[in-house]
């Protein structure tokens, strides 16, 4: 046998291995794993694949490792401490004795192992004994010198095998409890002996290199982990996803994305507008627009400032009116009005860019074509994440896979259902009619309230109570809170698939919120007009006041220095921009408050009541009437989107808005994560939100457009106030650009700009752009189509291949069958011949016998 020859060198190391196994009984798993790694040897043993043989071969490979380890140790010892050779020799002898003793034990164990496998145990044990004797020699060899090249070769082979095992372990059809120890063990093995490979002097370098590579890989993995840990709220969102399905998680991912955008907006406004003004602009109290007027000073530090945003908050960098129209501030010559204008434009432009880019990216991920054909197979075979090491995470992953299966099954069921189509249609029309009625009602209510509030404003707000003053906000919040509930109830009539139902729900709430928002804006426009009328009067009075001032105090001395009046006493215009900013800030605050209070009362308090009153209540609260609430994805998403719309609208007039929004988003991230985990239950019908991400984005884009419209309108068409804000004194806000062009750029640039803005040039450019967009759009369409075709082709090809393979396999099977039949026929013939022969021989014998 060739293979005994191979193992002569260290066959005796069986003993060591067996001693090892004596102590800790290796499980069957390891056995199996050893089997796999010794596949080559198994192949050589095709002849008698008895269990004992296989076992021995496994042991051999194990020995190899052991021997090499020993060998290395010995080598080192031999190299370093040659002087101690003598003592070592003694030790070696003792060791050998011990080994011999244990050899017997090991053999017994082997025998017992082999006995039950019905192999000739006696022969194998005798073989073992032989090999054991041979091995002693090999052992001594190891002690004296280094590894022989042959052993090295074998070691290398073993290491390679282990490596192969590690890479292919994932595909092995083993249970996890077997895979893990196998993996760990082979990794240890490879780590230990890889260094021993390499030749001669290069060995050390090689070992070092291997070690460094290991370290590098580990570092890379750690870096990856660190990166994941750096994604904010990732773990939280994953946890929620595993409990509530991807639709709820998609809300939180959207929230996080929104947070990122607001971070940029905030850094723009904060870094380029608020901080320069606060640091380099004129200080508070230097000019009238930066001072609280005399009549307000008494109440400027009231507690009400916190929610009214009047008093000192109004006359600070937080609002438009505080900014001075000085062209350049500070030693940096910072162009404040220009910066203000450009930041206002830049935030909007940046938002457009980001939203559109994200939409495009999402569309790319969509792919196109149907990926649903092997839905369940995909889910079964690809959903487990093998990187999970934490049992808790594994539980979560398990839960999420189960959830995704449920989702897929629900989807499948929905696609196969067919009901009474006429009834469904009628119900859907009815539901839409009801929703329209509801929308009209709420719109009228808001209109009514706004009209009333204008009446109040004309009569003076001080005569009315808190309810009347906050009527508009209250009604808007209440309608925004309750109408979606009503829509939800109505949409139960329609019997849509949950994802489609979600989209309808989103659309309806969208209409409602949009109506509310635009009614609010119309009311604001009215107020702006009122303020501007007031401003005219103030302007007129102002000149009178100035004339009065000069006339009264210094009658005939024009050379004297101009009298100084306390800036608080100077009469000033109403500054409609600050008013708009204030309104938006108030709206955001009240909106945030409503959201949080709804969350605390509607979710938390309800959950607490249900949980703790359940055991002393006369019906089951958890199953029955109040029960726990579900997470309302559509409402929350829309709340977020409209909130963002208000930010976009108001940010120009109140630079503090992005900061406030950032705060709000941060708090609501934590609050909602907590609330959803502690007081909500997963939806009864969990479903996937794969497609809805782009839907959110599309809505965001629409809102962005709709919210920039009024902002742009006010900027372009209404002249700024005469005595407040960075653009005071100009006839339009965008005049600041022209001013900069004239004074800060060389003359030719201004000329070029004026040529470029000539309609004769702009119009063809626009036309060109439209054409380019059209061209790109159509090309992308063709590409999509081509992709689809390719996909189909691929699928067809793979199916054809499958068919071919099947045919080939069938043919081979047929051939085999035929060959078998042939062989059987031949054998039969032979047998027949034999029997004939026998019979004839017997006949002959008989004849002979008879003859005798």
């Amino acid at each position, binding site marked *: 046998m060739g293979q005994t020859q191979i193992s002569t060198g260290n066959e005796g190391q069986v003993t060591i291995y067996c001693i090892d196994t004596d102590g800790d009984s290796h499980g069957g798993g390891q056995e199996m794993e050893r089997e796999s790694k010794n596949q080559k040897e198994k192949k050589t043993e095709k002849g008698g694949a008895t269990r004992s043989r296989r076992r021995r071969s496994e042991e051999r490979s194990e020995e190899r490792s052991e021997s090499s380890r020993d060998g290395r140790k010995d080598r080192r010892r031999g190299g370093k401490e040659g002087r101690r050779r003598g003592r070592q020799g003694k030790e070696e002898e003792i060791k050998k004795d011990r080994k011999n003793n244990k050899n017997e034990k090991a053999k017994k164990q082997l025998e017992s192992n082999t006995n039950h496998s019905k192999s000739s145990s006696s022969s194998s044990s005798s073989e073992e004994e032989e090999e054991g004797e041979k091995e002693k020699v090999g052992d001594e060899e190891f002690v004296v010198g280094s590894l022989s090249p042959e052993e090295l070769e074998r070691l290398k082979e073993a290491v390679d095998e282990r490596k192969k095992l590690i890479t292919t372990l994932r595909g092995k059809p083993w249970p996890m409890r077997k895979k893990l120890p196998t993996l760990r063990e082979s990794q240890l093995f490879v780590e230990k002996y890889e260094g021993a490979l390499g030749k001669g002097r290069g060995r050390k370098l090689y070992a070092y290199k291997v070690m460094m590579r290991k370290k590098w890989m580990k570092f890379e993995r750690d870096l990856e982990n660190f990166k994941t840990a750096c994604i904010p709220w990732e773990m939280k969102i994953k946890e929620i996803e595993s409990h509530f399905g991807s639709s709820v998680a998609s809300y939180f991912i959207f929230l996080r994305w929104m947070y990122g955008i607001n971070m940029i907006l905030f850094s723009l406004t904060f870094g380029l507008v608020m901080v320069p003004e606060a640091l380099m602009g004129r200080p508070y109290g230097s000019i009238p627009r930066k001072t609280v007027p005399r009549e307000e000073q008494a109440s400027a530090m009231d507690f009400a400032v916190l929610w009214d945003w009047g008093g000192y908050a109004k006359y600070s960098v937080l609002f438009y009116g505080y900014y001075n129209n000085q062209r350049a501030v500070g030693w940096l010559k910072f162009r404040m009005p220009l910066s203000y204008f450009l930041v206002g434009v830049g935030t909007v432009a940046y938002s457009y860019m980001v939203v559109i880019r994200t939409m495009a990216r999402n569309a790319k991920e969509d792919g196109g074509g149907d990926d649903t054909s092997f839905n369940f197979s995909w889910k079964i075979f690809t959903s487990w994440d093998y990187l999970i090491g934490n049992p808790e995470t594994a539980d979560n992953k398990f839960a999420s896979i189960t959830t995704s299966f449920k989702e897929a099954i629900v989807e499948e069921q929905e696609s196969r259902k067919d009901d009474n189509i006429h009834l469904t249609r009628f119900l859907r029309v009815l539901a839409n009619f009801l929703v329209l009625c509801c929308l009209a009602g709420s719109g009228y209510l808001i209109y009514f309230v706004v009209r009333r509030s204008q009446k109040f404003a004309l009569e003076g707000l001080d005569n009315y109570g808190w309810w009347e003053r906050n009527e508009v906000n209250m009604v808007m919040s209440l309608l925004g809170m309750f109408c979606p509930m009503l829509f939800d109830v109505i949409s139960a009539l329609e019997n849509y698939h949950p994802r489609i139902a979600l989209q309808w729900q989103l659309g309806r709430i969208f209409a409602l919120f949009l109506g509310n928002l635009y009614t609010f804006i119309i009311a604001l426009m009215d107020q702006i007009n009122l303020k501007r009328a007031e401003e005219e009067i103030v302007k007129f009075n102002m000149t009178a006041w100035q004339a009065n001032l000069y006339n009264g105090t210094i009658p005939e001395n024009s050379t004297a220095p101009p009298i100084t009046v306390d800036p608080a006493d100077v009469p000033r215009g109403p500054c409609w921009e600050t008013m708009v900013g204030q309104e938006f800030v108030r709206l955001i605050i009240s909106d945030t408050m409503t959201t949080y209070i709804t969350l605390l009362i509607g979710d938390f308090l309800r959950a607490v009541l249900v949980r703790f009153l359940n055991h002393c209540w006369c019906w089951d609260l958890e*199953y029955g009437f109040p029960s726990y609430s579900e997470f309302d994805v559509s409402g929350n998403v829309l709340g977020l989107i409209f909130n963002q719309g208000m930010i976009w609208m108001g940010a120009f007039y109140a630079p503090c808005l992005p900061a406030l929004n950032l705060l709000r988003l941060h708090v609501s991230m934590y609050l909602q994560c907590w609330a959803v985990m502690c007081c909500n239950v997963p939806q009864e019908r969990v479903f996937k939100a794969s497609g809805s991400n782009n839907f959110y984005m599309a809505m965001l884009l629409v809102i962005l457009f709709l919210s920039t419209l009024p902002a742009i309108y006010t900027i372009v068409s209404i002249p700024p106030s005469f005595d407040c804000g960075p653009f005071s004194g100009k006839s339009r806000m965008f005049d600041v650009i022209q001013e900069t062009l004239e004074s800060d750029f060389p003359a030719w640039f201004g000329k070029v700009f004026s040529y470029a803005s000539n309609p004769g040039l702009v119009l063809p450019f626009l036309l060109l752009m439209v054409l380019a967009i059209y061209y790109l759009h159509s090309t992308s369409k063709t590409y999509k189509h081509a992709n689809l075709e390719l996909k189909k082709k691929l699928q067809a090809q793979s199916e054809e291949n499958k068919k071919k393979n099947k045919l080939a396999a069938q043919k081979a099977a047929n051939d085999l069958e035929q060959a078998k039949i042939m062989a059987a026929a031949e054998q039969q013939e032979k047998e027949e011949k034999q029997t004939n022969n026998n019979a004839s021989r017997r006949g002959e014998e008989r004849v002979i016998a008879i003859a005798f």
Partner: protein
Amino acid sequence: MVSPAIALAFLPLLLTLIIRYRYYFVLLYRAVLVRWVQDLVTGISREERVYQYILTHATPGDPESVLDSFDDWCNKVEFISHIGPKKGMILDRLLKEHCPLTVLELGTHCGYTAVRIARSLPIGARLFSVEMDEGNARVAEKIIRLSGFDDDAVELIVRPSDEVIPRLREDYGVERLDFVFMDHWKRCYLPDLQMLEGSGLLGEGSVILADNVIFPGAPNFLRHACRSGLYEHRVHRATLEYIRGIRDGMAELIYRGAK
């Protein structure tokens, strides 16, 4: 003074509540208002009314016909709380599966469930039906006898359940209960179950079926059944009898004994 506009803004909430819980309003109307009006108009109790209806509509001696006329009355005329036809099917199936010889029913009310159980029992089986209220018991007795079950098949015990259970062995010679059906006060489910456990009448494989565990609901009972480890339990989900939209369920416990 709250402005009318703010009050109007609460209208959607009101509508939502009304639509979402419409079945409960229907239940309130049928079970409380109609009963109250009818009591005033006729001067006799609801149970008497249902008895009169059955007397005029059902065939004596035929339990099917009695049950049908019960269902008719409850669907068309007034609401009365008992197991109803849909959950009754589950009950029938369980009885057929287990073939119990001794059955205890807690809460006879008008005898609908007693008739239902008695008709699917094997020959020689006994049903003990416990009812606390004497007026109800009188009606139930009449209805049970009308359906053709004699004293040996169905025995009506007019006492509160917590007095009856400890005395079952002595007074009625019961050694083991194969099947227990609970449909009396939801608060008494848990104490009665514990009393049954203590009395030793439950054996391996005894079935306890409790109606209305979700609406009106018996959370403590369910929790005990889950946590005590004495039972295999499952909840059969269904809707409340004669009203479509209210979810309800029956808990089926199979006694496995302490392990």
